[in-house]
């Protein structure tokens, strides 16, 4: 049934209404003359609706004369009718065909090359090699011999183990697997010392392999050897091992900060002024007066570039300048207020200095007052892991 309907649509048909005294005769004559009609429906006395192929519409006139009836076209359906409708709009058809052709033509080319999977080889380097081998933006997909390209790269680059090429639409994804050097994850196989990487006092030391060089309570400086990989032996020459130890040291971090009692604060008033301009290469088109009425302000510039296919940059860009008005106000702190502010600021500062993984044991504030400001010094005591492995060199 669906196929039949499709065929009817393809051929084009009309729904017509016949009005007359002898509609049965009309139907009989149609069937006798081989005019195909279907879906005949009798609405009221003397009126029938039926469907007829577009090409048979001309032959009906004669039958209408014989049966003395009248015809009215209700609806025209099908492809021939649609094409008739667009016959007047030639330019529209031509341009849409050109569009299709252009899209088809463009889809035959590569518009994006992506390199994935490389860790050590820089992407630019791979892109340069691909460029030399002919994998370029704008090349026809069929004109590139990917197998040849692959083998050429294998010959050129010893550090490339495998190349995979995936073409999805206009995008080529080149997957790279790098050859790993055997002597790289090395440190475990070599004799090493453990060396301090910052200053502090040893709090705890437990050695799994190697010879301990420092004791709990010792002060160490950056670069001191904490655990030696050279282990003395009573029976033979010193043997060399890969040192392994957990060492914890105590460190102190101090920072100070002065807060004056009188302070000028800049704050945002909340008023915002936006100005747009369009840039075409070196030309700038201002969409509005570019100056702002604010006396003091922050300027935030954002540039939006028009990018085609997510890759091709065009010289057209939209610059948006946002001006945020600032107002100044003088604030007078009491000594207590200044101290609280200074303490908070100094705490934030010292927390920034303390490395990750360190445990803060306690901290301690020292407050000094000078003529017009308060100075707060913080000392934070931390417990942290220390020690980096270092190859023993001869």
């Amino acid at each position, binding site marked *: 049934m669906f196929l039949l309907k499709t065929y009817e649509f393809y051929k084009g048909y009309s729904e017509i209404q016949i009005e007359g005294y002898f*509609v*049965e005769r009309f*139907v*009989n004559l*149609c*069937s*006798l003359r*081989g005019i*195909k*009609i*279907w*879906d*005949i*429906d*009798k609405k009221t*006395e003397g009126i*029938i609706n*039926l469907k007829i192929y577009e090409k048979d519409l001309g032959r009906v006139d004669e039958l209408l004369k014989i049966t003395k009836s009248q015809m009215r076209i209700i609806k025209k359906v099908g492809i021939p009718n649609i094409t008739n409708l667009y016959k007047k709009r030639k330019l529209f058809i031509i341009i849409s065909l050109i569009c299709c052709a252009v899209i088809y033509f463009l889809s035959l080319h590569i518009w994006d090359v992506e390199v994935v999977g490389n860790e050590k080889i820089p992407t630019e380097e791979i892109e340069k090699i691909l460029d030399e081998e002919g994998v370029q933006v704008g090349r026809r997909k069929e004109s590139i011999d990917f197998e040849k390209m692959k083998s050429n790269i294998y010959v050129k680059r010893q550090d490339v183990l495998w190349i995979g090429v995936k073409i999805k639409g206009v995008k080529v994804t080149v997957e790279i697997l790098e050859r790993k050097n055997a002597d790289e994850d090395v440190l475990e196989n070599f004799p090493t010392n453990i060396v301090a990487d910052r200053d502090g006092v040893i709090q705890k030391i437990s050695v799994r392999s190697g010879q301990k060089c420092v004791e709990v309570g010792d002060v160490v400086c950056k670069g001191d050897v904490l655990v030696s990989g050279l282990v003395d032996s009573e029976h033979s020459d010193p043997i060399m091992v890969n040192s392994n130890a957990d060492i914890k040291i105590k460190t102190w971090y101090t920072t100070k900060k002065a807060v004056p009692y009188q302070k000028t604060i800049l704050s945002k008033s909340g008023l915002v002024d936006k100005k747009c301009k369009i840039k075409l290469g070196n030309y700038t088109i201002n969409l509005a007066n570019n100056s702002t009425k604010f006396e003091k302000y922050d300027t935030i510039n954002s540039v939006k570039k028009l990018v085609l296919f997510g890759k091709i940059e065009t010289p057209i860009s939209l610059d948006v300048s946002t001006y945020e008005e600032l107002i100044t106000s003088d604030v007078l702190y009491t000594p207590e207020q200044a101290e609280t502010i200074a303490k908070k600021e100094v705490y934030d500062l010292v927390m920034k200095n303390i490395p990750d993984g360190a445990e803060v044991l306690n901290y301690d504030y020292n407050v000094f007052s000078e003529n017009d400001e308060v100075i707060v010094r913080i000392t934070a005591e931390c417990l942290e892991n220390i020690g980096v492995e270092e190859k023993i060199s001869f």
Partner: protein
Amino acid sequence: MKKDVKAKFQEALELPAELLTNSYRMTLIDNTNVLIENYKAIIEYEAYVIRLSCGLTIFGDNLNVLEISADEIIIGGKIKNIEFEN
């Protein structure tokens, strides 16, 4: 005499009955569709009755002709009654 020859010929070759004689063949699907081959012509067509010149009269509700050609007609709708004429 002529009819006899046709009937004998048909019997001898075991041909379908409607092929040589002037008879019609009716295929009924439920009470919604009826296909009549060799119907000849429509005499009367209303929404409640379709009279065919082969001698069949079909009564029903909302009868409509789904398809028509020189030899066959498909009638759809709610068929209630079929009358035969001799």
